[in-house]
Every structure is written in structure tokens, then in C-alpha cells.
């Protein structure tokens, strides 16, 4: 994957990686799609047929402005109405850590999609570990920029934990990549060794 070194687009590095897993002409559902950066990219560069679900009214209107198909609503409720295997990919990008019942969401993803893509900030990155160890305070980093009292994140997830969770819930990890990002996540590189210690994000391609 030579493109991983250079970042010609403005797309965030983790989203570039997700995009590299999506085949051309496929159908994609983006959960919590924000202002639709990834979906727009997939639509243009992969000619993918994209749909997004997003709860925030302003973000939804930004998506529609861009010509994206997006439904305002709660991701778990909105997934209910789709027929089985409606999408080639269902993407949950950096939202898992905010979800109350991840198993329900992941099962729904794999019901309505052939494959799922899940990414999350890796809580066991060494910076976090050292912060807690040396300062005794809850870690605050550029990936997890919140204080304990104002964070929308209700779960702390590590790459290792997610692998274990896959076995427990009963889904398969088809592919995984760990990355380290910089420059406001615009650029980064792949981590191959000691991923759970060195990666800021984990990205997983999953199947039923």
C-alpha cells in the first residue's frame, strides 16, 4: 500500500485506510458519518453508493448539501429497517467508544452488511499508559482529547481487548491494521510491531 506514506487528499489518515479496504462500485452504510468526509470520498473515488446515518441536524444538512444520502437518526434504531445484507460494507468509524451496547450494534452491522469496518482510538497507546502511571490522571491525548467529565466516550477500548471481544461475541476479524497518526490525524503510518503499545488507532475489517 504505497499511498499510505503520502497523503495527497485532505482525508484523515484513518479514513484513507478504511477507504483502501472498500472495493469500487460497492454499497456502503456509514454509521455516525458526521459531515460525510469518508462517504463523499468513497462516492467520488470508488463510485460507491453511500448512505449515512447521523444524529446531528447540522451535520446531516452538511451531508445533504454535498449530495450525500444521509438519514438523521439514532444508528441502532435506523439500522433496524434495512433488509439483511443490504450493504457491502457497514462502517463504524471512531464511534464504538461511544456506544452503550456494542454487541447489538456489531451484530446489526453484520446482519445488514456483508462486512463491517470498525475503528477506534487505542486506549493502551504508550502515551496514555505513561500519563496514568506518571501523573496519576486520566489520560488526555489528541486522539482522546476530553477530560473525564466532558468526554462523550463511555468505553475505553484497546486493540487487544477488541480481538478478545470478537471471540466472545462471535464475529471474525478478517483484516486489521494499527496506525499511528500525526498532524491532526491527517497523516500517519502503519504500525506492525507492538501495535497495542504503539498504535493510536486500530481499524478492523470484520465478518459474521
Amino acid at each position, binding site marked *: 500500500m504505497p499511498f499510505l506514506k503520502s497523503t495527497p487528499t485532505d482525508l484523515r489518515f484513518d479514513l484513507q485506510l478504511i477507504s483502501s479496504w472498500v472495493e469500487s462500485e460497492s454499497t456502503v452504510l456509514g454509521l455516525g458519518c458526521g459531515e460525510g468526509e469518508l462517504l463523499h470520498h468513497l462516492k467520488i473515488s470508488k463510485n460507491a453508493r453511500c448512505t449515512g446515518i447521523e444524529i446531528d*441536524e447540522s451535520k446531516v*444538512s452538511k451531508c*445533504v448539501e454535498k*449530495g450525500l444520502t444521509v438519514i438523521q437518526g439514532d444508528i441502532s434504531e435506523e439500522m433496524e429497517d*434495512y*433488509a439483511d445484507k443490504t450493504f457491502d460494507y457497514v462502517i463504524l468509524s471512531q464511534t464504538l467508544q461511544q456506544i452503550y451496547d456494542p454487541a447489538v450494534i456489531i451484530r446489526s452491522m453484520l446482519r445488514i452488511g456483508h462486512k463491517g469496518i470498525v475503528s477506534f482510538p487505542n486506549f493502551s497507546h504508550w502515551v496514555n499508559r505513561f500519563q496514568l502511571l506518571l501523573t496519576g490522571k486520566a489520560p488526555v491525548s489528541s486522539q482522546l482529547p476530553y477530560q473525564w467529565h466532558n468526554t462523550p466516550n463511555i468505553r475505553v477500548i484497546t486493540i487487544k481487548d477488541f480481538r478478545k471481544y470478537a471471540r466472545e461475541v462471535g464475529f471474525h476479524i478478517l483484516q486489521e491494521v494499527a496506525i499511528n497518526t500525526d498532524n491532526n490525524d491527517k497523516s500517519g503510518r502503519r504500525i506492525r510491531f507492538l501495535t497495542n503499545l504503539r498504535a493510536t488507532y486500530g481499524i478492523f475489517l470484520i465478518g459474521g
Partner: protein
Amino acid sequence: MIGSWFQLKFHTRFQVSEYIEHDEHGPSVGIVKKRFLHLDGLTLDNGQNLASATIAYEMYGRLNSRKNNVVLICHALTGDCHVAGYYSREDSKPGWWEFMVGPGKGIDTDRYCVICSNVLGSCMGSSGPASINHRTKTPYGLKFPLITIGDMVSAQKVLLDHLGVQKILAVVGGSVGGMQVLEWSIRFPDRVATAIPIATTPRHSALAIAFNEVGRQAIMADPNWNQGDYYSKKPPDLGLAVARMIGHITYLSDESMRLKFGRRLQAKSDFSYNFEADFQVESYLHYQGKKFVERFDANSFLYITKAADYYDLGREHGAGSIVDAFAKSRARYLLISFTSDWLYPTYQSREMIKAMKKSGLEVSFCEIEAGWGHDAFLLPNEKLTSMIAGFLNNAFSEIDSH
């Protein structure tokens, strides 16, 4: 007061150049003309034939050579086909969606050919109960056949056939106009590429029917109504005004009324204690009622509200199921609702989204935060405008590239 100020401004602009036409919302389509299509007959859903029917319509922007840039606008209950622009240089009041439709606006008349026709049953140019029955040479009154939302849409299709438009880029409308949008997409699936139903419903709730019925009763209780036969006499103005006042309450919201009127008094410092209009909200409703009777026919109000109450998308097209009804559609949708709309609340849009998803349709949905109640789609709103603009732009670039 505002009217005269605006007129002044409008005239001043015209003196600068008669080709640059602006108003407070930006460039305008300028001077427009109401046109009429006369038909020998029109077959209605109930099998009846409406002889010598007329369809009033307006058209802005240019129909391109491929005839694939038509945006059809469907107006609401008491609206008309005068969507944008002015009838003359002296005309101080633009069309009802002036902020949305015009050069460079949300529905850009530099790119799209915008068509809107007055609904059947109305009194703003198309055939309705106030039209002359060619057999008796007198106004129809209650002899006018009961029309449906489907009939309104069929009449619009006849107009588009006449104009040589096969496929509509987008059909757009709010409220009862939104019902027509839904009906278009299911009745004529081959003719509609995209649909934008705004602040609408697949069928009236008991609440919506209840308000309409009170309005109708107010008209029919007016002694001047005379079983709908009043065209050569005094019309049932009082009943129609009350019907409009009730309607207006449903178009607003608790929040908007609180902000707009509160308990403020109208031009007085204390209560009159004699049943005069003391509160501003009373005076506002009286004014709205009075203004309405000057432009609207009471029988048309009865006919169109009844058509809206009878409308039931699932019953009509899906044997009771809106999922089966939407299965007939091939359009891509943009649904919009408003947080404070209590006439057609968001749950009614959500029901349609569920059905559309189950039918495999592509749908976008946004519930816009707006305090102005059901009427919000008639008020300038940046999100509403930019979403419609983006959605149309995407639809047009896809269709035009094929």
C-alpha cells in the same frame, strides 16, 4: 407599512435598471405571468369526467433541449401557482416561495425550469367549485366533483405532457404539496427522478382531520354558505375567516406564538372587559381571517381540506401498507420535517423513512430545528435552502451525465 417600504425599495431598484431585479432575498425571477391550459375533459379517480377543465400554471427558467431540468413545485392547501416573482412592476408582493426560487437560489432558475400549477379544486385559476359549469352556465358550487390528491397530480401530469416533459428532475412541495409529491412518486414512478416531500405525511392523523373538520363546520354553519350556492350573493366570509383562524393556529407552534405574541395586548394598556380583541394573538388571527376571505373561496377550502383528509398513501397504493405503496416508487427522496410542526410531526416522516428503507429506496432525511411550527417551510431557512440546492445539484449532475 412594511408593504409600502418594500414597494418603495423595489421601485428604486427598478429605476437603476429594469433588467436587474432584486428583492430582500436576492435576485428575483422578475415579472412572471400566470398561464392557462384548457382541456376538453379530465377523467377523475372516481370515474367522473370533468368537462372543459382549466389548469393555471407558472413557469420560470428555461426548459433545456433534453427537457431534463424540470423542477415541479406542488403548492400547499391555500397556495397557488405563483411561486416566485411579481406580476407587474407595481406588484409589491412576490410569490409564496420567493426566498427559495430564483436565479442562484435554492431552486436555481438559471439551471432548472420551475413549473407549478394551481391544484384542481382551488380558486386561483384552475377549475374548482367557483368555476363556471359549462352545462348550466353557473358556478359549480357543490356540483363540482369531489377531487382527490391523485386527481390533482393527474392534472399536473396532463400539463407536463402538454409541455413535452417526460421525466421530472425533482418534484418538491410542503404540507398538502408534500402529499402531492409522494403521490407523484408512486402514481407515476417512471416520470419522477427525485422527490422532496417537506413537512408532510402519508395520511392525516385524527388531529389534522379534527382541525380541518372544525374549519369546514365553521364555513357550513355560516348562513351565507347556503349549501355552497352563494356565488351571486354574499359569501360565507365569517365562516371562512374562522376556518382560516383555526388553520393558522395549526401552522404555528406553542413556542412561536409565545415569542410572537405572548400575552401582549393590541394597542391598549388594559383589558376591555367587553369581548373585543384585546390580545395581539386575537388581533393577528382576525387579520389573517379577514385577509384570507379576500382571496379564497369557501367551497374550495371544503374541497381541498377533504381531499387532504381522505388522502391515504398506503390505502391507495399498497392495500393498506405504506411499505407496499413505496415499493412502487423508483425515486430518490429527500424528506424534511421541522421540530415544532405539530400538524405533521416528525414521527410521520419517520414512518415513511422506515417504509422507504424496507422498499430499498434511497432516502435522505433531516428534521430541521425550527420554532415556527408547520409553516417553517415557508420561512427563509438556510439549512432548508442549502439542502434542497445540494440535493438538486447532485440529482441533476447524475441525470445529465447519462
